[in-house]
C-alpha cells in the first residue's frame, strides 16, 4: 500500500513555474509514486480533487499557501522523501560551471569578442575549412590552416585575400608553426633566438628548428606555408610574404627557407626575394640547385643539418659541439653482422620530409628506391603494396592517413609494418623516425618498442641480424625529452642517429654496402 502525506506551509510563496520544476524532480525520486508541489489556488485544488488527493487540510489551503502532497511507495521512508522535496524547494543554483567564460560559436564573433585575438588555427574538415579561413581573414586574424583536402582554387583565393590584408595565410595542410615562441599544432619547444624560418614542409621545419636549438641557436618565428605553396598554381604567395615579414622583423637576423623543389617559375620569384631580403638567407630546397641559390645571393644547404649549421653560424652563434659520426665505418660494422641475402633498407617514417631526406640520400648513391612519395612514377609504391628493394614509406601521406589520425599521433599502422618487414629475409635494416613535441603522441618510442623487439626476435630466430636505426626528432625541452626517448631505444639495441641528415647518410652507407 502506498502512503499519502500532505503538508501545507502557510504563507509560503513559490512561483508556479518553479513549483512545476520541483514537482518534476520530486516525481523522479526513488520511492515516490507521485509528488505534487503547488500553491493552494482553486485550480490546483481542483487538480488534486480530480486525482482524489484533496484532503480537508489541503482544501483549507489558500492561494498564498504551499501544498506538498507525497504519494510514497510501500515501505518508502516518507519523512526522508519529504526532506528531499524540501531540499529541492530550497535548492541554491550552482555557480556557473565555466566561471562566466564565454564560449564562441563562430570565428567572427570570437574575433569581435576577444580583445587581442590575432590568429586562428583551423583544423576542421576540408570541406568547411576554406569558409572558416575566409571569415578569419575578413575578421583581421592571421590563419594557420591545419586542414587538408582544400581545393587549390580556394587556397589561391585565401592567400590573395590574406596578402591584400597583410595577413599570414599558413596552409592549407600546414602542420607546424612557431609564432612568438608558441608552437602551434605540431611543433617542438625550442629556444627563442634570431633564426627565422619559412617552410613549406612540416617535419622539415621541425627538424631545422630542433637542429638550430641543438646547435645552441634559437628561433624567432617559424612560418609554415603549406606544402602546395611553391607550386606553379599557388606561386609561393605565402613564402614571399613570409620572407618579407622576417626581413622586416628586427628580432630575426637570419632566414631559413625549407621546401621540396619549387616549380621553376616560383623558384625564380622566391630567389628574387632572397636577393632583396637584406639579411642572410639559407635555402634548403630538397634536391635543389646550388647554383641558382648562390646566384641569388643565398646560402645553399644540401640537407637539414647543413641548413641549421649555416643558419647558426650566420646568426653569430658558436655552434655547440656535435658528436662526429662516421657513417661509413658505422655501416661497415652493421653489414659485417648481416646474413646472406640481407641487402635492403626499409624506411618507415612519420615525417614526410624526414622520409624524403633519407630516401634522396640513398637514391643519390645511385640505388633504386621505392616509395609512396616517389616523384618518379616508375618507382611509386601504393600504400597497400608490399615493399620491394629499398623502400621508404611516409605513413603521414594521404593514402595512409585517409580516415585515420596522422602516425605522429597514432602509430598503429607503422607498428604492424615493422613486424611485417622483419619477416622479409632480404631486409638488412629498418630505419624509422620518432617525432616528439606538441601535437605528437605522448610516448612514441614506448608504444613502438614492443614491435621493434618482436621484429628483432623474428630475425634472430631466423638466424639474421636486423639492424634497427631510429632518429628522434625533439629537444631537451620537449616532453618526453629527446634524451629519455633515445635512452629507451638504445637500451633495446636500436642505433640512434642524431639528425635527419645523419639518418640519411647512415641508411645510404648500409644500403650501398649490403647490396654490394
Amino acid at each position, binding site marked *: 500500500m502506498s502512503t499519502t502525506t500532505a503538508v501545507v506551509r502557510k504563507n509560503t510563496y513559490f*512561483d508556479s*513555474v518553479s513549483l*512545476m*520544476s*520541483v*514537482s*518534476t524532480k520530486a516525481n523522479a525520486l526513488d520511492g515516490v509514486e*507521485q*509528488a*505534487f508541489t*503547488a500553491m493552494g489556488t482553486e485550480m490546483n485544488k481542483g*487538480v488534486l480533487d480530480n486525482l482524489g488527493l484533496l484532503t480537508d487540510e489541503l482544501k483549507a489551503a489558500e492561494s498564498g499557501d504551499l501544498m506538498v502532497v507525497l504519494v510514497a511507495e510501500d515501505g518508502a521512508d516518507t519523512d526522508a522523501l519529504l526532506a528531499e522535496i524540501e531540499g529541492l524547494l530550497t535548492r541554491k*543554483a*550552482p555557480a556557473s560551471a565555466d566561471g562566466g567564460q*564565454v*564560449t*564562441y*560559436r*563562430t*570565428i567572427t*564573433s*570570437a*574575433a569581435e569578442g*576577444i580583445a*587581442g*585575438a*590575432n*590568429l*586562428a*588555427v583551423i*583544423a*576542421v*574538415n576540408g*570541406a568547411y575549412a576554406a*569558409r*572558416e579561413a575566409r571569415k578569419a581573414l575578413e575578421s*583581421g*586574424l*592571421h590563419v594557420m590552416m*591545419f*586542414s587538408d583536402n582544400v581545393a587549390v582554387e580556394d587556397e589561391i583565393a585565401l592567400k590573395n585575400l590574406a596578402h591584400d*590584408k*597583410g*595577413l*599570414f595565410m599558413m596552409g592549407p595542410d600546414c602542420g607546424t608553426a612557431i*609564432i*612568438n*615562441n*608558441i*608552437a*602551434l*599544432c605540431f611543433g617542438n619547444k625550442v629556444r627563442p633566438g634570431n633564426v627565422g624560418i619559412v617552410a613549406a614542409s612540416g617535419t622539415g621545419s621541425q627538424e631545422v628548428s630542433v637542429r638550430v636549438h641543438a646547435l645552441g641557436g634559437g628561433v*624567432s*618565428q617559424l612560418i609554415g606555408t603549406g606544402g602546395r605553396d611553391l607550386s606553379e598554381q599557388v606561386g609561393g604567395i605565402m613564402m614571399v*610574404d613570409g620572407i618579407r*615579414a622576417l626581413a*622586416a*622583423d628586427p628580432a630575426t637576423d637570419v632566414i631559413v627557407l625549407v621546401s621540396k623543389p619549387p616549380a621553376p617559375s616560383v623558384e625564380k620569384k622566391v630567389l628574387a626575394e632572397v636577393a632583396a631580403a637584406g639579411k642572410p638567407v639559407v635555402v634548403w630546397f630538397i634536391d635543389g640547385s646550388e647554383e641558382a641559390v648562390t646566384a641569388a645571393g643565398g646560402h645553399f644547404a644540401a640537407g637539414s643539418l647543413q641548413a641549421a649549421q649555416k643558419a647558426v653560424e650566420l646568426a653569430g652563434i658558436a655552434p655547440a659541439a656535435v658528436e662526429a659520426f662516421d657513417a661509413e665505418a658505422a655501416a661497415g660494422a652493421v653489414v659485417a653482422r648481416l646474413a646472406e641475402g640481407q641487402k635492403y633498407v626499409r624506411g618507415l617514417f612519420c615525417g614526410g620530409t624526414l622520409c624524403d631526406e633519407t630516401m634522396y640520400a640513398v637514391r643519390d648513391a645511385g640505388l633504386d628506391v621505392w616509395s609512396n612519395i616517389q616523384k618518379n612514377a616508375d618507382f611509386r609504391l601504393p600504400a597497400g603494396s608490399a615493399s620491394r628493394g629499398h623502400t621508404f614509406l611516409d605513413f603521414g601521406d594521404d593514402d595512409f592517413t585517409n580516415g585515420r589520425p596522422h602516425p605522429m599521433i597514432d602509430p598503429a599502422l607503422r607498428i604492424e609494418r615493422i613486424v611485417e618487414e622483419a619477416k622479409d629475409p632480404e631486409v638488412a635494416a629498418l630505419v624509422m623516425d620518432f617525432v616528439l613535441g*606538441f*601535437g605528437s603522441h605522448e610516448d612514441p618510442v614506448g608504444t613502438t618498442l614492443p614491435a621493434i623487439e618482436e621484429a628483432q626476435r623474428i630475425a634472430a630466430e631466423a638466424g639474421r641480424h636486423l639492424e634497427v636505426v631510429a632518429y628522434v626528432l625533439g629537444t631537451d625541452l620537449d616532453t618526453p625529452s629527446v634524451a629519455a626517448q633515445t635512452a629507451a631505444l638504445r637500451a633495446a639495441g636500436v642505433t640512434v642517429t642524431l639528425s635527419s641528415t645523419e639518418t640519411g647518410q647512415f641508411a645510404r652507407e648500409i644500403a650501398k654496402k649490403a647490396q654490394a
Partner: protein
Amino acid sequence: MSTENTELTPAAALFAGDLSVVNVGLAMFDEDIKAQNAQVSTLDWTPPGGGNPDAARALNALEASPELTAKIDAANAEAVERIMSARPMLIGFGRALDVVPGMTPTTILHSGPPITWDRMNGPMKGAVTGAIVFEGLAKDLDEAAEVAASGQITFRPCHEANSVGSMAGVTSASMYVHIVKNETHGNIAYTNLSEQMAKILRMGANDQSVIDRLVWMRDVFGPMLKEAVEFTGPVDLRLLLSQALHMGDECHNRNGAGTLLLFQALAPGLLQSSFTTEQKKEVFDFVASSDYFSGPTWMAMAKAALDAANGVENSTVLTTMARNGVDFGIRVAGLPGQWFTGPAQKVVGPMFAGYKPEDSGLDIGDSAITETYGFGGFAMSAAPAIVALVGGTVAEAMGYTRDMGEITTAQNPNVTIPALDFQGLPTGIDVRKVLDTGILPIINTAIAHKDAGIGMIGAGITHPPAEAFTKAATALAEAFGGTSS
C-alpha cells in the same frame, strides 16, 4: 625615417604582441597552446547547417560575392529597422467576422503554416470542433468533426489573415480579437482574447465549460474591452512591453507584470463601459484569474511589427516562426508569403503533476512570433524567475540571450534587458547566421496534451527544425542568385 614605420604591419603587430589564438576544430591544440601559457579560445564549432550539404551549399551561394553579402546585409539592416521602428498600438477590439480581412462565417483560422483537417493533431482538432459547436455550425462535437471534414469549413493560417493565435490558434467568426495598428507603417495585426486557465479551447479542450466561457467572452468580455479602448484611446504596446520586461517578464510564458500594466491601461475604460457592475466584476475576476491575459496582446504587437518587414527585397531576416502541431513553418522578409517547413518538435520541460512527456502534443502555436521579435525565449535573461522552466540557472538564461545575439542582426534599443546592462533585444533572426552557427532559435512555450479535449499540461523549451532553415536558405539562394547576376 620611412613613413611605413609609423604604423605596424599586421605581421609586425603579431610578432610584437602577445599571441591570442582562436582555435577551431581540434581541442588538443587548445591544451598545447595553454600549456605554453598563450591565450587560446576554442570555438564550440559545428559545420554550417549542422553538416547538411544542402545547407552548406545554400550558405555558400548566399556568400558568393562581397557584393551579394553587402546587398543582403543592407536589406537586413532595413528589415530590422522596420521591425524596431514599428510602433504597435492597441486601437480596439472587434468580432473577427467584422474586422479580420477575408473572414467568413465558416472560416476557421488556425496556428502555424497551412494544414488540412485530416493532418491536424489532437489539440487542434479539439479546438476546431469546439469552435464549430460554439459557432452553431454543429450541435455537438461528433457532428462538428463531420462538418470539419466535409469541406464546408475554410481553414486558413492566422498568419495569412494578418493574425496570430496562441496554441491551436483557432479563431472563428464571432470570437473577439485585438486590433493592433502599427502606427509607423500602417499595417494592422489581430489576435484573439486570452481564455485564461488551462482547460481552454486553444489548448484543445472543448467541453461545455469551454464553450460557455467562449460565449461569455463573446457577449460580455469582448464587447466590454471594445468599449474600454473607445474610452482610453490607443494603448502603446511597445512601451508596455518594454516596461513589462523591466519588471521581470519575458512576455511569452511569464506575463504577470505585462498583465498588470495592460489592465492598468484598460481599467478606466472598462469602468466607464455600459455594462453592469456585476459584469465588470466578472471581467475583473477573469483577468485576475491568470497572469496570461496580456499574452496574446504581445503576440499581436510582435506580429504588427514583423509584418512591416515583409517584402524587404534581398533580406534573409525571419518575419514568422509558427507551428500547427505537425509542421513548424518559417517565413522570410525577402520571400514574402512563402512558408518553409519541417516537423514540429517536442517541447521539453516540467509538467503538471500526473502527466508524463509521452502525453505531450508536439510544439504548436503562433506564439513563437514573440521570439521572432526578440522576446520570449530570447529575453529569458529579463525574467530570472522563469529559468526554472528550463530547469536551469540564471547564468544559463543570460547565455540564451547571448546565443540569440549570434543569430540576429541587431539589438532593439526600444526594448531592453536591465540585467544585461540594458542591452536591446536580439532582433532580426538571420537565416544565414542560424545555419552558420548551428544555433537554432530558442522558444519557451506551453505544452498541450496530445489528445483533444484535455488542454495544457506543462511548459518548456523547444527549437524549430533545422530543415526549415535549410529550405529557406536554398530558396533565398535561388532567388538572389537570379537577381544578382
